[in-house]
């Protein structure tokens, strides 16, 4: 387990002694319900200074509510929120040292771009010279020099979202909250903006808390990812950890593609998948214990039938650009296989998996840990 490296950990469940100053924001056992629906369930988390943290999960997992609680737009039913060690649970939004870039287009349409950006500074009665200087700087940061006098109506979606970011960062918040700011943009623009955001974070040196349901976005930008489902944390870790070592079927299924199996842990380092004994590296799952296993499609090696652990037959082949995506039927399971080498349809093949690439996980103890697409 490499979670000690992680910027974000379960504050209560992790016993390590991390200095208090690292915890810029700390959520302690936060719960929130809307009617009968429990959106956040005893949620604890802390965020370190200067990190890019992503809250990742499907729609309705509570990530936006969490962000709104941080922004001050919702009050938790239970639990406290500390900011730099100070309780801000009941502090009004306008008193918090953080700014939000909203999912929806929230520019002020009766104001020019410059007036939009200057709004927060005006509220704080900054001098005209300062406002001009900071506005120009913010415009420069988001790459929209010369847009000061434009009206929001005349901006494209990407430009509008960049202005929204400029409007937030001009106030020099300690934390910038971003609620799916790129979801309305097209793919190309979204990718460009992802790099822009990373660059901005580097330049400004402030903490970003980013909400998304797009796992690619999360993997691309984050220092740490919090995978959420049904108001609970599923896993916290670096993008690599989350991808390579999912802790449960939900995370495995939600992040990237994968072959997920109902398997049996025979004993340490031996797991029975589809009735066949596979070698693995995991230990400590007991003997003859049901487990979940995930094997990433790029980790499945296709060899000649006699060399494989189990045999199968290629059912379909799709060209995906960098790789081929193949469907291999072996032991009545459709294996998803990614490979740069094409094996023609109808070819009998053997399947081989490096023991290191077989990820064994405990069976879900709660419904929220189950894979969303699990058959």
């Amino acid at each position, binding site marked *: 387990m490499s979670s000690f490296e992680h910027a974000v950990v379960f504050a209560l469940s992790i016993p390590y002694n991390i200095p208090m100053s690292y915890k810029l924001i700390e959520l302690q056992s936060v719960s929130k319900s809307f009617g009968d629906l429990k959106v956040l369930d005893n949620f604890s988390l802390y965020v370190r200074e200067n990190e890019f943290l992503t809250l990742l999960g499907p729609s309705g997992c509570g990530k936006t509510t969490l962000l709104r609680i941080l922004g001050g737009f919702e009050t938790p039913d239970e639990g406290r929120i500390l900011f730099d060690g100070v309780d801000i649970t009941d502090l009004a939004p*306008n008193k918090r040292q953080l700014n939000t870039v909203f999912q*929806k287009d929230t520019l002020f*349409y009766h104001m020019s771009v410059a007036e939009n950006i200057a709004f*927060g500074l005006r509220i704080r009665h900054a001098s005209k010279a300062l406002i001009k200087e900071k506005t120009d700087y913010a415009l420069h940061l988001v790459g929209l020099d010369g847009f000061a006098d434009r009206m929001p109506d005349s901006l494209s979606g990407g430009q509008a979202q960049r202005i929204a970011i400029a409007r937030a960062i001009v106030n020099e918040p300690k934390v910038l909250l971003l609620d799916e700011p790129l979801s309305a943009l097209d793919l190309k623009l979204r990718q460009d903006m992802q790099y822009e955001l990373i660059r901005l974070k580097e330049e400004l040196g402030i903490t970003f808390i980013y909400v998304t349901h797009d796992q690619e976005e999360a993997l691309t930008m984050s220092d740490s990812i919090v995978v959420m489902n049904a108001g609970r944390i599923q896993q916290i870790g670096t993008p690599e950890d989350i991808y390579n070592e999912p802790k449960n079927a939900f995370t495995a299924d939600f992040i990237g593609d994968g072959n997920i199996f109902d398997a049996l842990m025979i004993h340490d380092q031996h797991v029975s998948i589809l009735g066949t004994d596979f070698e693995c590296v995991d230990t400590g799952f007991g003997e003859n214990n049901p487990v979940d296993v995930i094997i990433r499609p790029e980790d499945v090696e296709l060899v000649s039938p006699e060399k494989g652990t189990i045999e199968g037959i290629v059912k379909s082949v799709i060209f995906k650009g960098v790789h081929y995506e193949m469907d291999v039927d072996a032991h009545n399971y459709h294996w998803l296989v990614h490979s740069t080498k094409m094996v023609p349809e109808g070819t009998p093949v053997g399947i081989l998996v490096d023991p290191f690439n077989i990820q064994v996980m405990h069976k879900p103890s709660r419904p929220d840990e189950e894979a969303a697409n699990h058959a």
Partner: protein
Amino acid sequence: MNPRPLRIAKRIYTFLIILFMYAPIAAMIVLSFNASKSRAVWGGFTFDWYRRLVSDAGILSAFNNTILIALISSIVATVIGTAGAIGLMRMKSRPRAVSVAIANIPMLNADIVTGISLMLLFIAMRMTLGFTTVLIAHISFSIPYVILSVLPKLQQSRGGSYEAALDLGATHTQAFWRIVFPDILPGILSGFMLAFTMSIDDFIITHFTKGPGVDTLSTRIYSEVRKGIKPEMYALSTILFLIVLLLLFLINYAPEKKSSRSMKHLVLSRVVPCALVIAVLVFALHSTGKVSAAAGRNGEVVVYNWGEYIDPDVITMFEKETGIRVIYEEYETNEVMYPKISSGAIAYDVVCPSEYMAERMISEGLLQPVDRSVMPEVSNIEDRFFNVCDSFDPGNRYFTPYCWGTVGILYNTNMVKEPFDSWSILWDEHYKGEILMQNSVRDAFGITLKYLGYSLNSTDLDELTEARDMLIRQKPLVQAYVVDQVRDMMIGEEAALSVIYSGEAHETKAQNPNVGYVIPKEGSNIWIDGWVIPKNARNAENANKWINFMCRPDVATMNFEYMMYSTPNKKVRELTTNSELKNSSILFPAEEDLDRCEVFRYLGSGPTDTYNRLWREIKSH
């Protein structure tokens, strides 16, 4: 297929639709410039009616009220409605949907229901109907319109912008005024203009919630028009039409979507016209502000009288001589007046019902006895009338005769050649399609019962059934059952014979000398209107003074010459200098004709229902 005739047909069709919609308004506008009083004759172009409007204190005060009520009610409704819309937006979606529906219902509600409910509420709360109640009513019915125009703006106003402003450090107040308010301002202005227009436009609700002396333009126009031809009202209606048209134009004139400086654009397209309209109206208001006079040094008297039933100079004279300020209110029928008195919503001091209505009010204990000791002038009233009234007002304790008249037949002397003296001519096949009957149950039955030799207050079912059958038999001969139009139709020679009141008969003869009036030998109805003082009068002493004043020979003569109704005052025929009136056989019928006439009595609810049932049978036959 020939496209050309098709195109022409299309154009004609469009033209016809527009004509259909605008012809009435066009007619009114044209007539407002017609120098002739008649609706049928073009007497040349004139601005006279408009000029007269400006010098009519009553109309100016109505204008004053209209603007004041519209302005205050729309401002208050805009504030309440906008706040309400913001509140609605913050609700969860289901309660919001329910609340919006609830807020919208009053708009769909029939005005008359709204009006009556408000009136009932005010009465239940023991509020005196007047300016305040009209104002409250207008605020109440305007609010949904404001909500309706603000809510969509709030919905499309990028909902997150309010939170974004908070996030950027603004307080709730700052976020509202700097961000939300400018965004929804067009909706607020539309709502304001809509409320303003609705207020100016409203008649029915105002009608039910207004009190004495408070008139808006629409209620004023209504009461004036009820009285008959008054071209000033065409002029006034034209002005009202143009005001509403202008307002609607401003509301619906949507500025094009502009990418640049939309705020400036908004100011130019909405705020400026709004401000202009208000400025003009406030100026108008200010310049007419002097109209409303202060209360008289000796208090006031609230008079509730028929429309056009007094010489306005008499009111001025009374105010000058007594120092009592007159608040003057008019009604059109006894049935309109009665519920206002019986509900007690308005404390009128002196009212002028017809004899049968006075009888009902006496029997229901709605009146208080007058003080004859302060009425020396009552001696000028002919005993004949007091004697007639003694039947329903024993001892003449309540009722003081003011005007009277008969019901008779008005005929066109060119169309009806041979002389007649009986109601039977109304059943003469010879005049098929040339007869106008009164569209009123008591009048129609009254003359028929008289013709059959019965009392016009008969409650005998056999007699009434006989009368009904007579009326059914007459129906094919009748051109129309009419009320106010008799006069105009006889002036226009549209019918040969009509049942008519003597006052109207006289007026018709003044405009068309080719008519004659007959009180048939079987006898007819004589009606008497007179002054009474309601029990809840606040200024009974002044009301007594008013009644006394009305009996003064000089005052009665002024009224007689103005209204041209028969007067019970025995000095008037000597005093009047108008020889045409003096010698009118319509206004001063022969004694023996009068002796054969009967007054209507109040029959009670049972017989009234019978009358109404039989009348429906006739109308639906």
